[in-house]
């Protein structure tokens, strides 16, 4: 169950300006049946004043998609093309009270349809399908470009990959592009941050860094496997290149403990950090 505002429910149940304007001065389309939501926006514009006299929509989608489209038509009416172009997805969401985070992409769809309709008007009225720049598509499942992601990050001050998915849908299906989205986030948000320290080799690390690095390997690569057998491992001490550990749970007192130490834990630490490391039972 979504917590929709009364305003969302009102615009969903009583959508304003449904339909298509015949001989529209601008037609913008976004989305498709594959994506699960789509919007066609048509506008009538007074050519003398550039004021939008009428706007109508048709939407395929959920309650928030229909509500976002409906309120958008109300927002643009009476505005000049220049003013209407300034409407952001956040303006649409604000006009509805709010939208659940997972549904913010519905407001983005409204903004994109408007962008396409304005472009269509400026080009003489031929319908324009909102298109992402093909060469820079980041999310192939939902066809989202780097530019669209950067815009969503800047407009809405997004900080996590999950945020980007909620606003643009990018990364919401197979998830393969999540790494790339993180890089874009780092690029956009990280402009003012300190550059990352160059990775040191294990031998160059301070004692504290070495211990942290060993603990990280144990946590990520060792414990998950031991946990499968109901066991685990604790880091006890570090003497030079000798890592002292204690096996716990089902692993403590296990007949295969020595094998686990040498053939598994030691090997993983050598592969990940340094060939010189040895592992001993504390």
């Amino acid at each position, binding site marked *: 169950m979504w917590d929709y505002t009364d305003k969302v429910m009102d615009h*969903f149940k009583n*959508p304003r300006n*449904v339909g298509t304007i015949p001989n529209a001065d601008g037609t913008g*389309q976004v989305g498709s*049946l*594959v994506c*699960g*939501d*789509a*919007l*066609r926006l048509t506008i009538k514009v007074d050519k003398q004043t550039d004021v939008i006299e009428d706007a109508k929509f*048709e*939407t*395929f*989608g*959920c*309650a*928030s*998609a*229909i509500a976002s489209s409906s309120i958008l038509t109300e927002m643009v009416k009476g505005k000049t093309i220049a003013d209407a172009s300034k409407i952001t997805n956040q303006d649409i969401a604000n006009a509805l009270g709010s939208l*659940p985070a*997972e*549904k913010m*992409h519905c407001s983005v769809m409204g903004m994109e349809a408007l962008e396409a309709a304005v472009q269509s008007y400026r080009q003489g009225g031929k319908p324009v399908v909102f298109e992402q720049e093909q060469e820079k598509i980041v999310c192939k*499942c*939902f066809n989202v470009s780097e530019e669209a992601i950067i815009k969503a990050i800047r407009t809405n001050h997004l900080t996590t990959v999950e945020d980007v*998915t909620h606003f643009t*849908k990018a990364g*919401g*299906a197979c998830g393969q592009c999540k790494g790339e989205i993180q890089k874009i986030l780092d690029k956009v948000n990280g402009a003012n941050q300190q550059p990352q320290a160059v990775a040191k080799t294990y031998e160059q690390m301070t004692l504290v860094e070495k211990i942290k690095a060993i603990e990280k390997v144990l946590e990520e690569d060792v414990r*998950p*496997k031991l946990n*499968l*057998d*109901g066991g685990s491992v604790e880091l006890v001490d570090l003497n030079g290149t000798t890592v002292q550990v204690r096996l716990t749970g089902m692993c403590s007192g296990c007949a295969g403990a020595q094998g686990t130490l040498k053939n598994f834990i030691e090997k993983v630490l050598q592969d990940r950090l340094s060939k010189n490391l040895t592992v001993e039972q504390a």
Partner: protein
Amino acid sequence: MGKVIYLDNNATTQCAPQVVEAMLPYFTEKYGNPSSIHTFGGENRHVIDHARHTVADFIHAQYDDEIIFTSCASESDNTAIFSAVRANRNKKHIITSAVEHPAVMEPFRYLQTQGYRVDYIGVDELGRFNMDQFKAVLDEDTALVSIMWANSETGTIFPIEEIAKLTHEKGALFHTDAVQAVGKISVDVQAAGVDMLSLSAHKFHGPKGIGVLYVKRGTRFLPYLMGGHQEKQRRAGTENVPYIVGLAKAAELAKKRLADGTMEKVARLRDQLEQGLLRNIPDVKVNGDPAHRVPNTTNLSFGYIEGESILMYLNDFGVCASSGSACTSGSLEPSHVLRAMKVPFQFAHGSIRFSLSDQTTQEDIEVVLKELPAIVKRLREISPFSRMA
């Protein structure tokens, strides 16, 4: 909220009044711990034994001690899967289907990250199990095959007996998530030849928070929850006496319904609903295999519109159903079951599942038949794709 027309019984069911009544004394006066040495607690040991027998009888288990009480079917699924791979360490291949519940799917994905070879058997456009693919991937290295008995979204029933037989021919263990089958169709663990089976009480008018893992005697088993002698050391934790009693009562009532023609009545109402909607609304498609389907479920796709919008309009009439559409779950893709069936996109986003129960009435069905055509018409008027139809 006005009258509720509850057609979402695959999500959960109402706890039967007889079940609640049977449970109540075990919250209040009979609160003893079954493990206690004193008579007051010890009597509850017999109560559990009796419940265990009722459940064994319900699914035709040969021995009562093949029934392990758990907290839910998700726990049963996880227990079965991890037990099977830990008890067969020399084998590194496991098989499931592409349309399982997440409680099976996620453990398989996890084991995949731990180096197991995993095959996800596909389905055809009717949601039928791809037996050829299964036969091709099954081999001597297979430790476990876990295939659901009936699908929660479409109700499609898989040929469990045949799958179990093939599994055993290669020396692997067979587990089935039978959550959507138990209580709806006759489930016979011996005839089907399953080694492990998961079920959940709240899908057949029992309480939430109690499930069963059936483990056939002789099956190598390692517990998931450790730290107690309960359930013969196979599942630690003080027995949930009231819920075990409730589960047994629900099983007893379900057994009666399966024998007295109640489920046939449910099927007739389901068919009436399905046929009526197909007749009165254009561009509707049934998802699933009508020839092999549990009696209470129909999954229909309404072309060119989106499921959440349909559900929210139905909600105004008190009608509770569910959808495989992306928007209802907050995920961005339609359900994995419909995608595995390759349901065309113009239909995948507009799927609605109606799941009935013995409590569903003729009047309930008539409300849906009366209101839904207008809802679909209204949403199609808003949709830019309707004219494609």
